[in-house]
Structures are given as structure tokens and as C-alpha cells.
């Protein structure tokens, strides 16, 4: 379990990091919390010749409000997100999801940027970010651009990020006060990826669904936005038949792999259960004003 050899770099700015990645091309990888990359390196499934450690870049570690957006630095750790009063007040789904990721030790080091940029369909934050309509800020040799989370994921470990680009921040439009949210994750044990998981963000008006977004984790090669399922709920009062129809519509877009977490048919069924639970819980939270 000894990783291959590599040259270690610790740049102090995003620009220096981008220059290093551009210089070394495919042989270089950025290192944030390292809890996806280092295990892969120990198994020699990844063997980068250059590691660009981002931890010296203080600008990546802040959480701030900017206009209508909450801007989360890419190197903000899960533990930092859990402890953030701003996120607890404005984006409670991020805290609620972070608490379901891995275990305390891993959450001290694992970052939100790593979780969303890694491209593993088992990562939890991508579906949440899709639900929230987040945009990822990427900086590369050609400058800065924003990529909607909904368009970022191309396949397992394949994302819209160019090789020399670094994800520097996540911009989340703050949902209105009193919105409902839930991240329901079925997992075999602490530290496991989801057997099936569903994120929901919704708003209610006079007891009926005004807006709704649903996204799914680990039920296909990428996170999945269940747009049809969500659209069908607008105007409904989330009666059991409405919830079942949404769960069925969400199940229809899943394409889960069969693995130790169960065969595809089981995981698809659990996708429906997670969607139904997430909708119910989100509606309760919206009704309670929290």
C-alpha cells in the first residue's frame, strides 16, 4: 500500500497551481483533502507524477455571501461546512448532507470541491448541488468560467473540467427562507457510498408545491436530475399518490450498477423509496418553516 513516486508541489496561489497543472499536463493532479486520490494512489490505480497540493491556497477556504449567492471555497472541508453558521442558516441541506459523508476523521480533511469535482457517481454533494442550481467556478490557463452543476458530469470520473483547470468555488443561489430540503441516503454502513440516495429542495405556497428539484446519487454513471419527477409535483399538495408518481418517474431515469450494494432492480426500487422519504421530509421542513 505504498503509492508510486511523485514530485510534490505546494503553490501559494490559484495562478501558480494552474501553471503547474498546465506545465505537467496529464501527469499532474491537484490534491485537496486527498481522501479519494490517496487511496487510489495506494492501490496504484492512480499514479500521478506530480501532485499539486492546494492546501496552501487560503483563498479556497472561505464561505461567504455574494449578492444572492453563497460562495463556498473549493477547499472548504466537510467539517468546516458542518460548523458554518452561514450554511446552517441559508443552506441547511449542505450541513445535512455533509454529516452523511464518510466519518468524522475523513470530514476533517475531505473538501466540498473534491467531492463535487472528483466525478465519482458515489459522491454525495453533486446531486445536492444540482438540486440547488449551483454553478462551479473553474480557473484555468484561459481564465475563469462558470459551469452549471447540471452540465458538469459527463460520466464516471469524467467532468467538464479541462485538464489544467481547478475548481475554485461553488456558487449556490440561496434558496428562499422557509424552503424545504432533504438528503435521504441508504447505505450499508458508515463510510459506504449510497446504495441509493435522493436530494430534494422545494418551496410551498398555500400548502401546494411552488418549486421543486430532485436529484439522485449513485444510481447511474453520473448524478441524475429528476426533472420530470419534480415538474409533476408543482401545484400538488404532495398527497401519497403524488409522491408515488414522482418516485416512479425518478426510478425511470435510474441506471444503477449491480455491485455489493445490491442488484440494479433493488437499487432502483430503493431510489423510489429515498425520493418518497426525501419529499415527505422536505415538505415537513417547509411546513415548519425550517
Amino acid at each position, binding site marked *: *500500500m*505504498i*503509492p*508510486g*513516486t*511523485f*514530485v*510534490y508541489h*505546494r503553490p501559494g496561489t490559484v495562478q501558480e497551481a494552474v501553471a503547474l497543472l498546465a506545465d505537467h499536463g496529464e501527469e499532474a493532479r491537484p*490534491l485537496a483533502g*486527498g*481522501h479519494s486520490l*490517496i*487511496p487510489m*494512489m*495506494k492501490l496504484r490505480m492512480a499514479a500521478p507524477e506530480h*501532485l499539486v*497540493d492546494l*492546501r496552501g491556497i487560503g483563498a479556497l477556504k472561505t464561505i461567504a455571501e455574494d449578492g444572492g449567492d453563497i460562495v463556498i471555497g473549493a477547499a472548504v472541508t466537510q*467539517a468546516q461546512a458542518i460548523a458554518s453558521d452561514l450554511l446552517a442558516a441559508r443552506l441547511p441541506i449542505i450541513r445535512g448532507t455533509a454529516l452523511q459523508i*464518510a*466519518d*468524522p*476523521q*475523513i470530514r*476533517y*480533511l475531505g473538501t466540498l470541491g473534491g467531492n463535487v469535482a472528483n466525478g465519482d457517481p458515489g459522491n454525495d454533494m453533486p446531486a445536492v448541488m444540482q438540486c440547488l442550481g449551483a454553478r462551479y467556478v473553474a480557473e484555468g490557463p484561459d481564465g475563469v468560467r462558470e459551469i452549471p452543476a447540471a452540465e458538469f458530469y459527463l460520466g464516471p470520473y469524467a467532468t467538464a473540467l479541462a485538464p489544467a483547470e481547478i475548481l475554485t468555488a461553488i456558487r449556490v443561489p440561496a434558496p428562499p427562507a422557509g424552503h424545504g430540503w432533504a438528503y435521504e441516503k441508504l447505505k450499508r454502513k*458508515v*463510510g459506504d457510498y449510497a446504495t441509493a440516495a435522493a436530494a430534494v429542495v422545494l418551496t410551498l405556497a398555500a400548502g401546494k408545491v411552488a418549486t421543486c428539484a430532485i436529484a439522485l446519487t449513485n444510481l447511474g454513471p453520473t448524478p441524475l436530475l429528476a426533472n420530470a419527477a419534480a415538474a409533476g409535483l408543482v401545484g400538488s399538495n404532495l398527497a401519497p399518490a403524488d409522491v408515488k408518481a414522482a418516485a416512479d418517474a425518478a426510478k425511470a431515469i435510474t441506471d444503477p450498477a449491480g455491485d455489493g450494494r445490491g442488484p440494479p432492480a433493488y437499487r432502483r426500487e430503493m431510489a423510489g423509496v429515498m425520493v418518497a422519504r426525501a419529499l415527505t421530509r422536505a415538505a415537513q421542513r417547509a411546513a415548519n418553516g425550517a
Partner: protein
Amino acid sequence: MTDQIPISITVNGRSVRRFVDPRLLLIHFLREDLGLTGAHIGCETSHCGACTVDLDGMSVKSCTMFAAQADGATITTIEGMANPDGTLSVLQESFRQMHGLQCGYCTPGMIMRASVLLRENPDPTDDEVRQGIAGNLCRCTGYQNIVKAVRHAAAVINGRPSQEAAE
């Protein structure tokens, strides 16, 4: 081959400077370079928590971190947990009294994790202790007496009578 790089780390109050291979994992640095074999190598896959150490007030799995990443950090391992006079700290004594260990392999990681947990949450419930040590596996105890040990330590530290008794 790649060049060694200089690192400077404070370990158990001692300042340490070394040149290390970039690929050297922190657990190997602690055990092999510094001879601190209290932190254990269990699964080597960041699941079991036997290698947990305190790094700048965070519990980290030292098998999933390069020593180079710890440059500038302050680390405490189980060897640094006893009182200055060599007697056991409250948490260590609580594990002994509550039988919070059987084979002892997970114990250094459990104690290092529990110490940070109690710093962040000085009076945790049973459930909070279980959530807090969710990244540490024990294959002997069934966790009952580990939870009791942490709660007992919390009671002693908070100066109130402990409700705990070992099973």
C-alpha cells in the same frame, strides 16, 4: 527519482525536522522515522481508524495523508496523551476502568478520536459518542464499554459523578 523535501512538524511537543520522500505516508513517518508505534496500521484503507492522530486539533487518519502534507502541523499521538508526571490521563484511565478495550489494537485511535470529540462536545450523549467514533472500528468490545469510557471521562472532566459501570 523524486527529490526529498524538508518538513518541520511538532510531535508530542517536540519539534522535528526531517527530509522525507513525498510519497511517505504520515503513519509510516510516525512509526518508522520517529519510532512512535502507538498509532497502529489496521486496514490501510482509511476505514478502521486505528491510525488516528490529532493534527492541529483535528482527528485524522494518518494512513491517508502524506507526511509532506503535515508540514508545519502540530501532532499529538497516543504517546503524548499521558499526564506530564507519567500517570494516565482521565480518558486513558476511563478506558481502563470501564474495560473500554479487549485486544487493545483500536485503543490508541479510539482515545485520540475521543479526546477531540470531548474537546468539541464536552458532554456528549451516548448517541453523540457513537456518531463521534463512527470512523473507528473495534472488533472486540461491541463498543458498549468504549461508549461508557468516553461518557465516564466526560463526567470526571465535568466534575460530576459518573453514571457509568463497565459491563
